[in-house]
């Protein structure tokens, strides 16, 4: 059962279609990656989830309830284009934003004090936002996103503007939030963090969903049965010993070792490959090349673009 569902959502702007019949299912207590190139329609979808704009068609469900105005108190949103009132004092502003999310004044004060201490920005409470460094502003922004303890969190490029130390701090917080029961929608171009954090993803391109599923499943599905093998005691071209349906992608010498990438037929396994090679070479290491999310992203998007150029109706 999904915690949050988007069903057949379409949104048109005057000149173009921002979303075309997009559906996503976000499982409870998961980290859900919402991926796609710039201008694919991610921000539109996120705004629709936040009820900032309304879809032309389609429905959204929050725990099986139709998404309604009162749900905004259960959603925390960290937009990609983020900002604070520059001339307003940090604490005052955090309090204001928390109260707009329906947190009572005393409650908000208590929680803000806790988070400000945790994030080491307590001394800045009475400073104006413009006096803060970018990183500190981001921390304040993160705090106001989660201060009302939302059950659904939407982070749009949450790590931009953070140094590596604070990125780790943030990752830990995100994981803690999930452990404590929150469901997280996470939009980013940083594929390394997708692999690290996300359980499921949806890839949107040109306003359509082109890929979705569990990260592990997607990666398995995108395996090409390609192996990387390092060996020595064999100086010739490997093709001389490989069967015809085994495809040598590359072979190069590195120090005293040779490294080759070989794609084998779908029916074959690593054992087959070893059996073929062992009589000729001494194997040092063999491992399957699993595509990174980065490669999957680029390949899928490029594929779709070239096919959609051929069939415009696709």
């Amino acid at each position, binding site marked *: 059962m999904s915690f949050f569902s988007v069903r057949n959502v379409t949104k048109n702007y005057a000149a173009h279609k921002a979303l075309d019949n997009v559906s996503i299912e976000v499982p409870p207590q998961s980290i859900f990656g919402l991926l796609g190139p710039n201008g694919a329609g991610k921000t539109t979808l996120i705004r629709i989830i936040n009820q900032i704009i309304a879809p032309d068609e389609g429905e959204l469900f929050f725990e099986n309830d139709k998404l309604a105005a009162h749900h*905004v108190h259960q959603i925390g949103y960290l937009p990609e284009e983020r900002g604070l009132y520059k001339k307003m004092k940090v604490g005052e502003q955090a309090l*204001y934003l928390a109260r707009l999310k329906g947190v009572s004044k005393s409650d908000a004060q208590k929680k803000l004090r806790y988070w400000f201490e945790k994030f080491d920005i307590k001394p800045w409470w009475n400073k104006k936002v413009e006096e803060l460094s970018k990183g500190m502003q981001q921390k304040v922004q993160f705090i106001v996103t989660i201060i009302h303890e939302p059950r659904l969190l939407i982070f749009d490029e949450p790590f931009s503007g953070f140094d590596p130390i604070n990125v780790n701090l943030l990752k830990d917080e995100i994981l803690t939030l999930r452990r404590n029961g929150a469901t997280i929608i996470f939009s980013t171009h940083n594929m390394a963090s997708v692999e690290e954090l996300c359980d499921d993803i949806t890839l949107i391109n040109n306003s359509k969903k082109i890929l979705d599923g569990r990260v592990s499943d997607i990666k398995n599905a995108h395996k090409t049965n390609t192996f990387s093998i390092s060996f020595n005691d064999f100086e010739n071209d490997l093709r001389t010993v490989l069967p015809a349906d085994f495809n040598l992608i590359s072979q190069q010498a590195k120090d005293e070792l040779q490294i080759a990438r070989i794609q084998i037929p779908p029916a074959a396994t690593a054992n087959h490959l070893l059996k073929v090679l062992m009589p000729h070479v001494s194997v040092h290491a063999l491992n399957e090349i699993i595509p990174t999310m980065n490669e999957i992203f680029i390949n899928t998007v490029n594929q779709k673009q070239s096919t959609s150029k051929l069939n415009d109706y696709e």
Partner: protein
Amino acid sequence: MIMNKIILIIKREYLTRVQKKSFVVMTILGPILMAALFIVPVVLSQMSDEVKKVQILDETGWFLDRFENSDRYVFEHIFTDLETAKANISGSETYALVYIPRPEVSVPSSGIIFSNSQVSLDLKSHIRNVMAKEVENQKLGAEIVKEIRKVNPTLSEAEADSLEKSNLVTEEILKNIKTNITLTSIQLGDSGSEAKSYTEVSMGVGMFAGILIYFFIFLFGSQVMRGVIEEKVSRIVEVIVSSVKPFQLMMGKIIGVALVGLTQFMLWVVLTLAIVTIFQTVMPDKVNPQQATEIYNQETSRIPSQANTAALQTMESNETGMTRMLEALQSINYTTMIFSFLFYFIGGYLLYGAMFAAIGAAVDNETDTQQFMLPITVPLILAIVMAQFVINNPDGPIAFWFSMIPFTSPVIMMVRIPFGVPLWQIGLSMIILTVSFIAAVWLAGRIYRTGILMYGKKVSWGEMWKWLFYKG
């Protein structure tokens, strides 16, 4: 919940602006300028140490020896007909001629001042006071006699005179005897022709109110616009609209800024009064003519009874120096004036403020606002330009139509009201303005909610037109 959020937004918009240095500076500078507006002419008019000769042509005979010479004015009673008197003072040394016509039925309540040059407010209020004083005294005498007769109808005149009268004076009587004297001033031209100048006060007040409305709409309307741009540029708007509806954010801002404007206005009024009052206390001989106190001393000595001191005090406090100044403007209905000022300020501000908000939402920075500002500034400036015509013909068709068109009515109607405007016209104009600002707020809301989320795009009029029809 929704109301709570709007109130939160209003509170923020209000507090951040009221705490700004520029607000504090404006609040202090405004009253100083306005007080100067009141004080400087009074001081200037009394600077001349020359004693002015004023002739009194009193057809009623009530005020024969009531005008006492002071260090500024010498009064002289003349007994000719009006035409001769007018001819005599035309071009002569005499400063002014006060003509008090005999009333047909009741007590004298009006006078006309003929003069070669503009008559000073000081002289006007002096004459008005002396006349009012005398008429009130006569009325009081009559009332007291009536009271005595009521109690004891058989009492003889002499016996009635010897009675202790003070305890007969009730608050009601004091209210009844209150008399308003209407003074009209007419300036005589060199050729002896008359130019009525009694409208000058209405003109001044009307123009002042019109300009004030214009100024407030511009000042606070553009504050709304800047606020919207600030939210858009700093990108905080996206965070906020994930908590509240864009319309709530827009309304919260518009209302918050309106309250700042009203606060500023109230502070200006209060501080201006305070400054004028302080000035009068520090230099009473300059601004507060002594006659005022003398007159009241007389009155208190005549009616020394304990019971009536309270009533007298209220009368007295109503008649402090400032009010005496304003008394010169008494032909204007101030309740209407203040009520309509507030209404037209709020109505005009909402109408223009909504448009300012829509523009702020459509652009990315303040420099881009130029092309959209024009359609807003033109009607406002037109209103101020038309005000010059309207003021000379406050009941003409131009005045009528421009006080109906909602874009100009706040300024033009304020200019007209001191001259007296039929109630149905005020009502109609207010209804039109109300309908218009509701429509403007609604339309602006639609442009606003699309505009605030649109970055890095030069927006055209056509684009804004399309935004009106976007869904949700």
